[in-house]
């Protein structure tokens, strides 16, 4: 069962051997190739330089300090190679991490997921492909926490619009959002137009504006 026809070349950074092997076989199962799997942030930077992968998957917490080395490396990599798709896996929800990551580059081609999500194998691989294609993926749990805050400028959005924005923030297309909310795709398009207008986002390429909307959402 292939979600995406493309074979992605992946550099994987994860300090637990158990998970590294598991993820490698999981990705192989979907026809993707892990060109390098490493155990710390320094090796990650080196591996990316060597292999020029389609997408990087990295854990947040890695040796030597077991703090946020993986995230730091990911942000650093995106500074040096704008547009390098990076999917960051975290063992806990941390909004500031997500915001930091999305702030790197122009916010396209990044993902921030809870590690738990790799258990939902198909969705995980889908998200990975989305990131590799320049999409923005934010974990539903992060989105849920953000929704509780309800602060300006998001206060201006109607509940339905917030719902739509939450799904967009999770990296879904208009069609996927429409299916989820059981409405027509045209209705979703209208909601998104209204969200962008309420968030004062400048008229530009639609993908870019979507990312900006997600960023506004995360920073609120």
């Amino acid at each position, binding site marked *: 069962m292939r979600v995406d026809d493309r074979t992605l070349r992946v550099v994987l950074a994860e300090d637990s051997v158990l998970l590294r092997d598991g993820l490698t076989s*999981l990705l192989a199962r979907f026809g993707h190739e892990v060109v390098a799997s490493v155990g710390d942030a320094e090796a990650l930077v080196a591996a990316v330089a060597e292999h020029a992968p389609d997408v990087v998957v990295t854990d947040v*917490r890695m040796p030597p300090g077991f703090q946020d080395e993986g995230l730091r490396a990911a942000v650093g990599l995106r500074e040096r190679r704008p547009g390098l798709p990076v999917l960051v896996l975290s063992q806990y929800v941390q909004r500031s991490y997500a915001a930091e990551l999305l702030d790197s580059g122009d916010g396209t081609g990044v993902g921030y997921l809870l590690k*738990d999500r790799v*258990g939902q*194998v198909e969705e995980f691989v889908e998200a990975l492909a989305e990131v590799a294609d320049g999409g923005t993926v934010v974990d539903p749990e992060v989105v849920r*926490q*953000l929704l509780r805050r*309800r602060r300006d400028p998001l206060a201006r959005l109607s509940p339905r619009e917030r719902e739509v924005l939450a799904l967009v923030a999770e990296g879904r297309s208009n069609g996927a959002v429409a299916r989820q909310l059981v409405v027509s795709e045209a209705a979703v398009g209208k909601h998104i137009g209204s969200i962008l207008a309420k968030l004062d986002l400048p008229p530009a390429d639609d993908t870019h504006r979507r990312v900006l909307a997600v960023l506004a959402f995360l920073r609120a």
Partner: protein
Amino acid sequence: MRPRNVWQAMSAPGFLLSAWPWRAVAYLLTGAFAGAVTLVGLVVVVTVGGALSVVVVGLPLLVLTALAGLPVARLERLRLRLADRAPAPGLPRRQPTAYGPWPWLTTRLREPASWRDLGHALLLATVLWPLDALVVTAALALPLATLATPLLMATVGDGEEAKVLKQWTVTTWPTAFGAAVLGLLLLVLGAYALGLAAGARAALTRVLLGAPRDATLDARVVELTRSRVRLVDAFEAERRRIERDLHDGAQQRLVALTMTLGLARLDAPPGPLADQLAKAHGEAGRALEELRELIHGIHPKVLADHGLAAAVEDAADRSAVPVDVRLELPGRLPRAVEAAAYFVVCEALANVAKHSGADRAKVTGGHRDGRLRLQIRDNGRGGAEDRARVGAAEPGAEPGADVDAEARAGSGLTGLADRVSVLDGRISLSSPPGGPTLLRVEIPCEWTTEPFA
């Protein structure tokens, strides 16, 4: 360092030019005066009271005399500040059980501190004040008189002669000025003598009025304080270790398990096996979720990585009640301080959600003048003081009336108040019925990293 008392000042250079000799003089002079007035007062009251006791009205007067030590001791404590800046706590005093003069009187008459004060007043009125007067006279008046010899010669003696201290006669100017130089030297000597005497007098007052200090008890308090700090540190380190172990061990294995189950589901043909796999997969996912929450509750990673402000934002995100966070914390604070403050905020927000009925809460604060200050306020119905008697932790206070309610609602905050007090900090709660509720935390600390603008 500023000297705290006159003896310390004497050992420092510049004593003669500082305010301390003047303070010593003022202390001894007011002492002589206060003692004399006390003596007169006591004699008058006792005489009048004794005379009137024949017609009974004198007896209350005599009873009041027994409490004469109280105002005198109060005055002496005030005066003590002239010679010694350190506070002089007295014996602990009991709170009268009821309002009114009679309960006050009986309480005061029954407690040992009142009788000690009376003893002190008697000593002051009989022995101490003449000594004060004597010292001032000897150390100040005699040198001044000697110093004034040339002046005396020029005025009273018509330039012919002058009597030094009414003892020996000086007839020539050089001798007169010699006497003046001697007076100056005596004055310097006198200043030190005054300092010495004022210091001794202050020390004596402190012994007479202050609570007795028990050296072994002091040492024990120091040791207990230190061990308490060590315990909290160990507790904190243990939490971090547990968090790390869970994270590196159980959590990784559970993730790997859900991944394996997820892959197995892909290959399983539809049927009972696939259903069981789906169930196992779901259970594993829920276990993972619960474990994640558990780990977060033990020691949130965001606190360790990003500091207090980010962790409080995170806690606000999780709160059921919308919370505004406005913290000015540009740098990092000591780990123990961050952890204590964070858990206080979490507990406060949990209480807001559970008890207050508020629909809005606010966390504000920052670090200024070497103190971390946080306020957590809500717009709820208040009355939290009755639920959580944070103040019950104060020494000597009566235990809370409703211990069960306290244990239910307040144990979280009481425990946190203990934790904050280990760091020399304070928690205070204001929550009148009808609201609003305001919880303040204050912990003295310094930045561990330079704050950036």
